[in-house]
C-alpha cells in the first residue's frame, strides 16, 4: 500500500478490547490513529468520538439547487418559446412542481455522494492495513516514531489485541 509513516498496527477480535485500546490511546494523547472495522460499529464510533459528518450540508444544498433549477428551467423554457396548449397559461407552475421535485431528489442525491467522496478524501490518512479488517477483525493503526513504539505495543497487547506488529 501507499507509503505511510511508520507505526504500530493491532488487530482485535473483540469490540470491548478495541474500545478500551482506543480510550487508552486517547489518554496517551494520540489523535491521528486509524480504526478499521468490518461494519459500522457504535461503540467504536463513540470511542473515537468524531463530530457529525458534514455530508448532510451537501444534501441540503443539492436539494435546494435542484428545486430552484427545476422551476427556473421549466418557466424560462416555456417563456423562451411560448406555445399555447389546451388553453393553459404558458408558464403554469403547478405541473412544473413535478419537475422541481424530481430535480430536488436527483441533484440532492448526486450532491450527497459527491460530499461523501470529498470528505472521505479530505479526511484520508495514510495508514497500514490488513485484509482481515474487512472480514471479522477490528484494526487500530497508531503512527508513532520508533522510540515510542514499544510502549504502544505493550498498551495494545494489554488492551487485548489478538496481534500487534510494527508496520514500518
Amino acid at each position: 500500500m501507499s507509503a505511510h509513516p511508520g507505526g504500530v498496527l493491532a488487530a482485535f477480535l473483540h469490540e470491548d478490547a478495541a474500545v478500551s485500546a482506543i480510550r487508552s490511546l486517547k489518554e496517551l494523547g494520540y489523535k491521528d490513529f486509524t480504526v478499521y472495522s468490518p461494519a459500522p460499529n457504535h461503540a467504536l464510533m463513540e470511542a473515537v468520538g468524531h463530530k457529525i459528518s458534514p455530508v448532510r450540508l451537501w444534501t441540503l444544498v443539492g436539494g435546494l439547487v435542484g428545486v430552484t433549477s427545476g422551476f427556473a428551467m421549466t418557466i424560462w423554457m416555456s417563456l423562451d418559446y411560448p406555445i399555447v396548449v389546451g388553453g393553459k397559461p404558458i408558464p403554469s407552475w403547478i405541473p412544473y412542481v413535478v419537475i422541481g421535485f424530481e430535480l430536488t431528489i436527483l441533484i440532492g442525491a448526486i450532491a450527497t455522494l459527491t460530499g461523501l467522496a470529498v470528505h472521505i478524501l479530505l479526511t484520508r490518512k495514510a495508514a497500514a492495513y490488513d485484509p482481515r479488517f474487512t472480514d471479522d477483525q477490528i484494526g487500530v493503526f497508531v503512527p508513532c516514531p520508533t522510540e515510542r513504539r514499544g510502549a504502544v505495543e505493550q498498551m495494545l497487547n494489554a488492551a487485548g489485541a489478538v496481534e500487534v506488529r510494527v508496520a514500518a
Partner: protein
Amino acid sequence: MTDGMDRRKFLKVLGVTGGGTAALAGCSTDDVAKLIPYMVPVEDQIPGVATYYASTCRGCAAGCGVHVKVREGRAVKLEGNPEAPINRGKLCARSQASLQATYHPDRNRSAMMRQGEGLAPAEWEAALAEVATRLQAAPAGSVWFMHGTQTGSLDALIGEFVTAIGGRRLVFEAFAHEAVRHASRETFGRDEVPLYRFADAQYILSFGADFLETFMSPVEYTRGFADAHGYRDGRMAKYVHIEPRMSGTAMSADEWIAPTPGSEGTLALAMAQVIVERGLGRPPADARSLRAALASFTPDLAAQATDIDAATITRLAQEFAAGPSVALPGGIGTQHADAHRTAAAVNVLNYVAGNIGHTVEYGHGLRQGDGYATLREFTVAAEAGSIQVLLIHDANPVHASPSALNVSGALGHIPFVASFSRFQDETSAWAHVVLPDHDAMEQWNDWQPRAGVQMLLQPAMAPVFDTRQTGDVLLDLSRRMGRTPRQATYKEYVQARWADLQRTLGDRAPFDTFWRNALQRGGVWTEARPATVRLAAGATRVTNPAWAPTEGQLTLIAYPSSTFYDGRDAHVPWLQELPDPVTKMTWGSWVEIHPDTADRFGIMEGDVVQVTSAQGTVAVPAYLYPGLRPDVVAMPLGQGHTAYTRYATGVGVNTWSLLPGEAAVFGGAQHYVSVSLTRTSRHERLAKTEGRNRQLGRGIAQAVTLGGIAHGALDHPFHVAHAAPVPEREEHLLDEVAAAQRRATDYGPYALRNTRWGMTIDLSRCTGCNACVAACSAENNVPYIGAEQVRRGRAMQWIRIERYFEGGEHGEPLETRFVPMLCQHCGNAPCEPVCPVFAAYHTPDGLNGQVYNRCVGTRYCGNNCPYKVRYFNWYDMSEPGAPKFAWPDPMHWMLNPDVTVRSRGVMEKCTFCVQRIRGAQHRAATEGRALVDGEVRTACQQTCPADAITFGNMMDPEAQVTRTAADPRGYRVLEGLNTKPAVTYLMKVRHLEEA
C-alpha cells in the same frame, strides 16, 4: 356568401384558361417526371400557382361541370364548377376520387394487340391498320359498335361512323331505367325519364328511387332535396320513402315505409284512388277519366297486398295531395319483373295530384342506353355467328350484366373484337386489339346531359400515357377505310358542331369568342321549355304489379352501389376504402340480413353465408341490418371483378351472377330474385369502419321534430351559454402569442388578429353521401390502407360520416342519423397539453395545429381526443417501395403539393385545410387587404352537394359561420367536456306528423 369565392375562382379561370390550353402541348409528362425547370416558361403555368380548367365530369351521365386544379402541368384536384347548371359547384364522392383513375398504375399505357393468349403493347400504327383491314373485310351488317351512354359530338361521330360502315350500334348502360321509360311511353307517350324538381316540392315521396345515390343525377337531386328538405325558419318539406330496404337515400327520410317487395305500385294506385275519389289536389281536367280505372284499387285491398294499413295509405294520399309534391319511381322500386306497372302507377299518382309539368317535367330528353333487351339481341346475334367485328367503347357488359346472359360466351363467338377501354377489364380481356381512349382530363369533347345544356371537356394536361381520343381514332379509321371526313381532328369536329350550335342559339359573335367563352364557363346552357304532357291511352290500363319470391325463399334485392355505380369505379382505391353510406363496409361485398331473419338462420354478423338463386350461388359475409323487411335480403352490385386492375380484382363477389338473364316485359334486367341462405362454418371480421351503431344516449347526433320546434323545444338558453367559441383566458393568451409571432413574421398567417376559424354542419341537410370524405382525401393526400388494416381499425380518412340508428326496436320506427365527424379544433383541446414535444399546439388563429415533423409518435393525443379524430401512420404509406406504399407511379402525380405526405410513425388529422387558409391569407396579404368572409372554403365544404357546411372566422360577427352557429339548433358534440369545439352542429329536424 359563396359568391365571393366563386367569383374569384371564375375570374381565375377566365384569366388563364382561354385558348391557353394550346400551350399545354409544350408540357409533356417528362416535365413532371424529371424535374426540368421551365427554361421557356409555359404560358399559363406559374410554378407553385394552381391553374384551373373548366371541364366536365364523366363519372356518370349526369354531366357535372368541374374545375380541374392543375399544378405544374398535372391535374391534382377536381372541384365543382359553380357556373354549371347541373351541379352548381358541387361534386359527388365518385367524381372527387376519379383522379385516381386518371393516374391509375394499371391503365392501358399504349395500344395493344393480341399475341397468343394475352395482349401485348403494340404500335398505334399497326393496331389501327389491323382494325381498319378487319372492318373493310367484314361483310355489311356484321359490324357492331357497343358503347356506354354517349351524347353530343362523340355520339354523332359514332353514328356517322357506324352508318358509313353499315354496322349496328348498341348503347349499353347497366341501369337504363327501362321501366320508367316504358311506363312514361304508356302513360304519357314519351320515351324518357322525367326531371324531378325537388326545390318546388313540399312533399317528397320516393318509390324506391335512390335519387341521392345513383338515380339519374345524384348531385343535382341532392342539392334540390336539401333545399326542399333542409330546415329553414320553421319550414321544411316532408320526405317519405317507400322501399322494402332502407337505402342510403331512405336514411334521410322522415318516414320509411317498407311494403311487401314489389307492391309499391299497388300503394301508389291506392293513393291515386283516394285522391281521385275525394277530389283532393289540383288534378288536370282529364284526370277524371282515370276514376273508373282506379276505382277498384281501394286502400283496404291495397293494405293486404302491401302490408301497410289502409289508414296510413289514406294519410299518405292526403299529405301527398295537400301541397306541391313529387313522387319518384325508379331505382330498386322499378327493377323487378313487373316494375313497369309500378312506374306507371306512380306516373298516374303524380298526374292526379297535378304534379306533372310542375315538379315532374318531361321534355328534357333524359335517357340512358338502349336497354337490357338489346343486349340480349346482341348475345343472340353473336352466338348465331352474325357478328364479325365488335367495337367496344366505355362499356363492360361482361361484368355489369347478369352472368346468366353469358355475354362473355357471346364474345367468344366474335372473330374480331376491338376495345377502346382505358383499363383491362372483363370485357376488354376478349379484345384482339385495344385502342385505349384518353381520360376525361386529357381530351377534347362535349357532353349534353339534357336538352338545352351543352357541356365542354378540354384537356387539362398532357396525356399521362400513350393513349388517343376515340374520336380521333374513329376519324383515323375512316380515313384508312378510304373516306375523307370533313374534319382532320376530333377537336375540329367538336368545334364544327359548336359552330352549328352557335347558329341555332342565334349568337352573332365571331365563333372564336363564342368558343372561348364556352370553354371558360365550361359550356353553354339555356333553360329548356318542359313539354306539356297529357294522358296516353295506356294510362287507363294501370294495374297492380306482381312480384312474389319462390315459396319459402327470400327476396334478394340487388341494388346499385352508390360508390361503384355498376362496378366501373371499383378500381379506385379511395372508393374501395370509402365506407358504404349504409353499412360502413369497405373493400368487399356483403349480404344485408334483418337481425330477426339472421336469428332464424342462426347467422351472426360476419358469418359467411351462401346466397343461392336459380342462376348461381355466392359465399359472402353477413351484415345484420335493421333497415330491411325480414323477408328481404339485399346485396350491392359492382364488386366481384375477375379482372379489373390490382384494386378491384378478386374483391367481393359479383351479385350479377345471381340475377336472371331474361329481360323483363319492359326490356330491363331484373334485380329482384328469390334466394335461399345457408350458413357456412367460415367467419370474417368485417372490414367496416363503424364501432357501435347506437349512440348510447350520448347526444352525438341530436335531432328535434318540426312540431317540437314549434312547441319551443329549442327555446331554452342551454346552447347560448356554450356559444363562446374561445375561453377568455385563452383569448388573451393567444393575443400575446400572436403578437410574439407577428414580431417574428411580419406578414402572412399572423397578419390577421384574433381569427378563430370555425365550422358549422347542418345535420338537417347532410345526407351522408361521403362526398366530403373523398374530397378531403383528394385535397389532403390521405392514403388508403387496404382491407386488412381497415379490419384492424386503422382507416385514415380525416373526416368520417358517423351513422347512428335510433329506434327500430319494440315497434318504434327505425331512424338514421348522420354526423360528419372531423377534428373539432377545440379551444381547450385535450390533445394539446399531453403532447411532450408540442407537435399538437394551438395556433393564434384558433386552429388545433399538428406539426408532423415534430411528432415522435407517443400517440397520447389520440388517447386523449374524445372525438377520436386523430389518425396514426402505423405503416409507411408514403415511402416508394414500402410494403404499404399508397401512391404507385404515376398515382403520386396527383398528390397535392401544398400538403405534406405524412411518413410512418406520426399522428395526423383534419387541419381545416390549413393550406387553403394560408393560401388565401397570403393572397390577401399580397393584395394588401383583409380576408373576405367565405374566401376560404375547406375541401369538404366546397364539395358538399347538400351545402350543409359553412366555414369562416367565428370572431367576425358578420360572418355567415358565426350567424349560423348562433342558430338555436346549434350544439357542440360532447359539450359537457368543456373542450370548446370550433365545430357547431345544427340539429337534424324530423318532419313527423305530430300527435
